[in-house]
């Protein structure tokens, strides 16, 4: 059970890889429309990080027994130690009380800029008008570190430059808080000097070529590139039976 699982799906791998970015005792938040991080946080809490505290729009350290595809949902306050809300979440972050945050977007570029606003050259008349970044532009300055999750590692989602910067990545006036990018193919981070995206590990069964083909810029490749630690058997069992029997994590892939 504690060894690596042999039978897991891409969503399970991604949830597990995100869970592994979290440390015990941290306070972590997730954005809206973020079912994969919601499950990853609960998985981390059920395994290596029992003291991990999730702070979201509904409550602090809740024990949800069910989910829907929404993050402002009463079930996310079930068993919480305290109810929360949008303002409190931002105030806690601004006060320095949030250690880690999960964000996503339609595009993330070489320097870690994220676009959740609009696709196309003309922002005013975009090809695709997206949702907007909710609190990203603010929280990226106030949380401890940022973990980007991207369920589809594709060229157009990882371009050289994003069409619109909703969340700034590497920026001269911004303290570097970009920690990890976790996709369905790999884990990446950012080279401290240049701020450029760098491969950290490749998911089991994926090749470097596959990653390069699906990335719109040249990733920095370190000398050794390990395989991403796969989910343990315990993680897979917990995910399927206790943490997410509904399979809500699949909806984000």
């Amino acid at each position, binding site marked *: 059970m504690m060894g690596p699982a042999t039978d897991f799906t891409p969503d399970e791998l991604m949830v597990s890889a995100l869970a592994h970015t979290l440390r015990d005792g941290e306070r972590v938040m997730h954005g*809206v*429309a973020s*079912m994969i991080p919601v499950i990853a946080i609960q998985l981390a809490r059920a395994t290596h990080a029992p003291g991990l505290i999730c702070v979201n*729009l*509904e*409550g602090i350290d809740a024990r949800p027994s069910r989910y*829907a*595809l*929404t*993050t*402002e*949902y*009463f079930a996310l*306050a079930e068993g919480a130690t305290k*109810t*929360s*809300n*949008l*303002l409190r979440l*931002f105030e806690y972050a*601004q006060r320095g009380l949030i250690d880690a945050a999960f964000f996503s977007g339609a595009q993330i570029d070489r320097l870690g800029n994220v676009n959740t*606003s*609009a696709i196309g050259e003309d*922002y*005013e*008349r*975009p*090809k*695709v*008008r*997206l*949702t*907007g*970044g*909710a*609190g*990203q*532009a*603010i*929280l*990226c*300055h*106030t949380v401890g570190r940022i973990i980007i999750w991207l369920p589809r590692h594709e060229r157009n989602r990882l371009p050289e430059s994003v069409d*619109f*910067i*909703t*969340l*700034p990545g590497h*920026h001269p*006036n*911004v303290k570097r808080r970009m920690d990890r990018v976790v996709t369905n193919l790999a884990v990446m981070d950012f080279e401290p000097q240049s701020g450029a995206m760098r491969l950290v590990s490749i998911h089991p069964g994926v090749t470097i070529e596959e990653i390069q083909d699906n990335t719109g810029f040249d990733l920095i490749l370190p000398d050794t590139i390990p395989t991403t630690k796969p989910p343990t058997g315990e993680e897979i069992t917990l995910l399927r039976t206790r943490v997410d029997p509904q399979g809500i994590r699949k*909806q*984000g892939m």
Partner: protein
Amino acid sequence: MDKLATLSQAAELVRDGDVLAISGSFFESVPMALIREVIRQGKRDLKIIVSAHGIAVDILVGAGCVREVSGAYIGFEGYGLAPNFRRAVEQGTLEFNESACFAISSGLRAAAWGLPFLPIKGLFGSDLLLRHAEYKPYTWDGEEVMLVPALKPTVALVHGRRADSAGNVQIAGAGWDEVIAEAADRVIVTVEEIVPEEEIRRTPERTTFPGFLTTAVAEAPYGAHPAGSPGLYDFDEAHVLEYLEAGKTSDGFRSYLNRYVYEAPTHDQYLEAAGGVKRIFALRI
């Protein structure tokens, strides 16, 4: 002072050109019955100020009531993009004044507290800043903050759990609707249930905002549907999916509006069209 109104009287307090703030968020405590009545009454040129919202904004945009939206996230979370909102922005028929959640909610809070602005941290480096010349960077003792101006809605539309006839409103769940009620000039409220004043006075710690902020209050059971009301009923996921499917085309959305708004001229008739007693009972928590 008696603030009781019918749903129709309540919606009549919205005027063309009003600046609306809206309670709840994606699928909870959204004043949908009130919004449908606003659509029936053909209000036009509305401006909307929200932080993160979905169907409330999308249906008003799709019905042609809205000229401008200020917001930080308009969508249906895991269920998809907001179809009418997206179409209107892509076609250039709607102005979207995009910002970030805490900038908008702090602007509303400034208005609620009678202040011209509030300071927040963040925003630097985001292209959002290029679109908000009114946000002023300010340095205090070497620490840089952003001053965001007050955002003043003329009307707040609110759906709550219960209220008395004086308009003392109790909203369950984890919202910050007190802020929008206090920020607005007029506050129009629907609740699941009108209760006697004594019931409110027995539970003053649950009151979200006092009656002196409320302009009118109407009873509208299941008035958040297809959104939910925390502690009472869940949101109607199947209806939301039907809405999104219909919204894929303008024609499809027109059919949706006909069926659920124009040809269901009362809230009761809407609930019948949406599945009646059987459906609403199934949503009870």
